């Protein structure tokens, strides 16, 4: 049985039209005109226990509106939501015990107090038993290195430290489901890597289901096997990330360093799109020509000093999908 079920979910917002001028302002006091904005229209998906799902889409696609309906903050206009067997908006407090929520840009910790005090308050709010609290704190302290800043007020923490504290705080009550909204935003490379390792670990060790929204495609690539891609409130893709790569990631880049750059090497099947001194960037389609083919062509006229073949990053794949839509997708992948 899936741990999260969403069926034909819809959310409309009524946005008051702002009228201009003095008369307009007066008129809007008496009679306001509304325009309907469909933030989420007819989205369905289900998530099994223990999955890590990348929930992605451009800004304003309806990501956070969906998350808000799953966490019980918003009431849907239509459709069905079931989180761990509970309808979140009908049973918000009970649902809250089953979920951990981290908003990357807003802390849930007490700003002016030493970090440890936030944990103690959350222990009371979620009614975590003493032994469970101690056990979790021991684990998190060790894995996330919390002890180096437990007595520092939250406002003095670095962003990386604060994120570590925030994620620990969201897991104190052992929720089976964790919502992560931009958990690596603003972090440096090392801190990002640490955060990802930790998410992976808790997912494996505790079987926690993770719903991850992010703009960092590296997060998706390193953490998720499956992604749900939405745009304009509709689901565009739901499935394996590998499959998207397969379908949209046919373009490779071959980078060669030549010994002497007398002239551009003649090529069939590849296209040089950038050159810097004796280094050339060559774009090619994997289905039409192979990398070894191209290399063989070049070695006829030039000596190759060094070469690399770059796979497309998921990021460029996604932006391609945003631009071109899904018309190209075979029916097996299309949703």
């Amino acid at each position, binding site marked *: 049985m899936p741990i999260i079920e969403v069926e034909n979910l819809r959310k409309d917002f009524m946005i008051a039209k702002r009228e201009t001028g003095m008369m307009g302002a007066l008129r809007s006091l008496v009679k306001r005109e509304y325009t309907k904005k469909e933030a989420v229209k007819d989205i369905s998906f289900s998530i099994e226990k223990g999955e890590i799902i990348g929930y992605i889409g451009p800004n304003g696609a309806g990501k956070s*509106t969906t998350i*808000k309906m799953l966490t019980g*903050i918003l009431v849907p206009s239509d459709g069905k939501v079931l989180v761990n067997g509970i309808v979140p908006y009908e049973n918000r*407090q009970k649902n*809250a015990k089953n979920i951990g929520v981290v908003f990357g840009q807003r802390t849930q910790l007490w700003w002016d107090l030493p970090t440890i005090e936030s944990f103690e*308050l959350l222990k009371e709010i979620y009614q975590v038993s003493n032994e469970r609290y101690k056990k979790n704190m021991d684990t998190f302290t060790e894995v996330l290195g919390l002890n180096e800043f437990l007595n520092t007020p939250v406002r003095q923490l670095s962003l990386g430290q604060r994120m570590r504290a925030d994620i620990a705080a969201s897991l104190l009550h052992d929720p089976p489901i964790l919502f992560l909204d931009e958990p690596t935003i603003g972090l440096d490379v090392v801190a990002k890597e640490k955060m990802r390792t930790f998410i992976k670990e808790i997912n494996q060790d505790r079987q926690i289901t993770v719903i991850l929204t992010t703009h960092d495609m590296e997060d998706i690539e390193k953490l998720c096997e499956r992604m749900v891609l939405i745009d304009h409130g509709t689901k565009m893709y739901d499935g394996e990330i590998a499959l998207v790569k397969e379908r949209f990631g046919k373009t490779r880049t071959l980078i060669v360093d030549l010994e002497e750059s007398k002239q551009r090497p003649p090529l069939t099947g590849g296209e040089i799109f950038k050159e810097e001194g004796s280094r050339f960037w060559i774009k090619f389609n994997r289905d039409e020509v192979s990398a070894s083919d191209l290399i063989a062509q070049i070695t006829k006229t030039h000596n190759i000093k060094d070469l690399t073949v770059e796979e497309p990053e998921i990021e460029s794949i996604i932006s391609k999908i945003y631009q071109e839509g899904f018309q190209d997708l075979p029916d097996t992948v299309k949703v």
Partner: protein
Amino acid sequence: MPILKYVDLYFKLVSAGIRAQFQYRFAFFMRIIGLITAYSGTAITMWVMLYRFQELGSWSFFEMLFLFAIAILSWGFCIILFFHFRSLDTYIINGTFDRFLVRPINPFFHFMAMRFDVASFGQFIFSILIFIWVSFEINIGWTFGKVLFLFASIIGGILIQGGLLVLISALAFWTTKSEQFYWVAMYPARNLTNYPLVIYPKIVQWFTAFVVPFGFVNYFPAAVILEKETPFFPAYIGYFSPLVGLVFFMIAYWIWMLGLSRYKSTGS
């Protein structure tokens, strides 16, 4: 969550709030000094005014001080308990209000306990000093019953003023503004209660008795304790103060919850 757990949690959250404020010790003491100075200023204005007229609407200077002290004392408690509601709009605008909705406790309670304004010690010090001073100057004839009634009506006053704060904050659910409404509603209403209502036109008195019941914060109860006349109103009206407070607060809470459910469907 059982009610006892809530009480326990309230004190834990509140004490966290106090410790948070003590992080800024200088600002804390400056606020207390500032408050006492401001209230003394109002008291001196009263004295200057009454120096000429001897009394205002049959209320002497010390009777007015007594009236003033009741308002300040209940306002002090009100600040401790409900002042945080004033800033609800900020939470809604920058999205931090959602945090209260992903936790397994009542959001009204959670929001209320989130901050604790300790500077109201200024109000306590000021009003207790005034009570003592006035008790020496005029013969109030304190009885056990009168003391009990004073406490009950202070609770009533806390609930009335707190109710208005809650009501004002609830507007933020519809308009995303609450701070502005505070200045146009709460501030004038409180200033009105600095003086005995008898000096105001009948319509104002009627308004403060039955619409926004600030008359029950101090004027009606003080009239009962000091055994003064309340023209246009029966003398026993002051006894209703705790009940009025309870009803008014319950209405405010209900409207706040209504606003919350609106928030849940609009998200802004």
